[in-house]
């Protein structure tokens, strides 16, 4: 059977579907048009791009080899890196501790009144929408320049995210374990301790570890506004065009992030075991 015969027998399968094609065309044309409009309205010109790429090439040439100058400077950098890690660690931990009670308040199976839950959720959303860097600027007004403001900034912005994730973990918990404990003669508190907590704690711990990883990255940049950590030096070295130092600092950050990722991946694995992550 040849194609012509097939077409004659099943005309609907071979007829062009103009409606579908129009949808596909619109799905392609609209983003491309928006892309062109964005390029035009943001004043992106090829000459600027190429001139910039040329300069960027020069910078990359100057970045090699990475160097740290004097030993005193190396020690300063290492201390700043330790500060960054400390900020990420404390900020994440404080955020988790503050978010735990709110997670319970925002969970459907703990507080059944929707109006209250709605309020808590919108509050968490608002806190979450404000970036770490903005929180850092606000906290600097309160405790002054330095890493403590960074800790508080990380704490504030993650607090919203943790509250949401924790409440979801609590809502997803199986109530049968709690009922089981209570039917064996346990009190309500026993039910929460031996029925609910073992279910949600590993999930929460793994989320906290995951955020610690990503906060190591955030903590490297809050130094740009003066909230401590290695970002401050990165900012200064870029301003004075010391490209060797810049690349050294970037490598330092990369090494730290990779190390933290490896450690926290192992810890996460130890905490949740082989269970699929929810």
């Amino acid at each position, binding site marked *: 059977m040849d194609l012509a015969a097939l077409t004659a027998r099943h005309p609907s399968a071979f007829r062009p579907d103009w409606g579908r094609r129009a949808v596909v065309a619109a799905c392609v044309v609209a983003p491309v048009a928006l892309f062109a409009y964005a390029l035009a*309205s943001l004043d*992106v010109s090829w000459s600027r791009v190429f001139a*910039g790429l040329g300069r960027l090439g020069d910078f990359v040439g100057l970045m090699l080899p990475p160097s740290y100058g004097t030993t005193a400077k190396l020690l300063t950098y290492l201390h700043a890196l330790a500060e960054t890690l400390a900020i990420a660690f404390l900020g994440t931990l404080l955020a988790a501790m503050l978010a735990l009670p709110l997670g319970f308040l925002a969970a459907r199976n703990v507080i059944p009144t929707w109006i209250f839950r709605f309020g808590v959720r919108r509050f968490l959303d608002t806190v979450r*929408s404000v970036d770490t860097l903005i929180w850092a*600027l606000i906290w600097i007004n*309160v*405790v002054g320049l330095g890493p403590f403001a960074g800790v508080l900034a990380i704490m504030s912005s993650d607090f919203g995210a943790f509250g949401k994730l924790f409440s979801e973990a609590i809502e997803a918990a199986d109530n049968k374990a709690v009922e089981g404990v209570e039917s064996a003669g346990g009190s309500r508190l026993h039910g929460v301790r031996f029925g609910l907590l073992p279910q949600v704690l590993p999930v929460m711990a793994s989320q906290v570890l995951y955020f610690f990883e990503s906060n190591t990255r955030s903590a490297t940049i809050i130094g*740009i506004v003066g909230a401590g950590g290695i970002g401050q030096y990165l900012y200064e070295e870029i301003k004075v065009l010391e490209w060797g130092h810049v690349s050294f600092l*970037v490598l330092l950050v*990369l090494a730290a992030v990779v190390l933290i990722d490896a450690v926290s991946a192992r810890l996460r694995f130890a905490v949740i075991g082989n269970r699929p992550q929810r």
Partner: protein
Amino acid sequence: MATAIPHRPDAQNQALVDGYEAAIAARRRRTLLGIAILAALILAAARISEVDLGTFFGNLGRFTSYIGRIFTLEDGHLVFTNPAEWLWGLRKWLRLLGETLLIAYLGTVIGGLGAFGLSFLAARNMVVAPWLRFSARRFLEFCRTVPELVFALIFVVAFGLGPLPGVLALGIHTMGALGKLFAEVVENIDMKPVEGVAATGANWAQGVRFGTLPQVLSNFVSYTLLRFEVNVRGAAIMGFVGAGGIGQDLVEAIRKFYYSDVSAILMLIVVTVMLIDLVTERARHALIGRELGR
């Protein structure tokens, strides 16, 4: 009729009880050790990051008064009493917000296209030399590990002030983040349709177009939309380092203590971010729903 419940002799039970208690004690010791290590780490971190609870609680009033102050106009009334005065710069801010959204859009599209190309090189099941896969993966890792603001700082020096460095910084970071996710999607596809297309005599490109692409496209779009949400937040702070968008005005308002402007711009950013979240969530659910309906 009374039945005698057989009892094990206490001596035999004792061994089991001892074993149980030893096991529990070992667990307790491990937990205590964990807590001790955690406490030591907290103390060390607090020392390094100069945590000063005295200053914190002494100045906590400043935090609440600052929040109160940014919601107060110059004449001492709350901002909500006079919206026209509060949002005096609405026209300019909306233009800057539009610029922020365009930066996020361009960065997402550029990064998404780069990720699309590289993900096929980084995926294990696509026919590719191991060294090429290895270098593609390391490159993507580098792109997503360096914070976007660091890229932006460097690009501002190279390309000059304005939205362009912001777009490129977001683009590179997006490429790294999406490239990893895309590669995982490509690795998880069902190879049977690809083989089926190949069996009809199609070449490699046709196999990708009709075998691979239909399986991955909806996931790709969904991840890209999610990334757009993240990039809107990222673009809002690009102005902190001079890379365009509304961040420039925000940082100026905070630094120069234009209190009511701070709350106005923050409110606009928060509302925009929430709206974008809502729209992209709708779009993603519609996409996934259509996928399941087929």
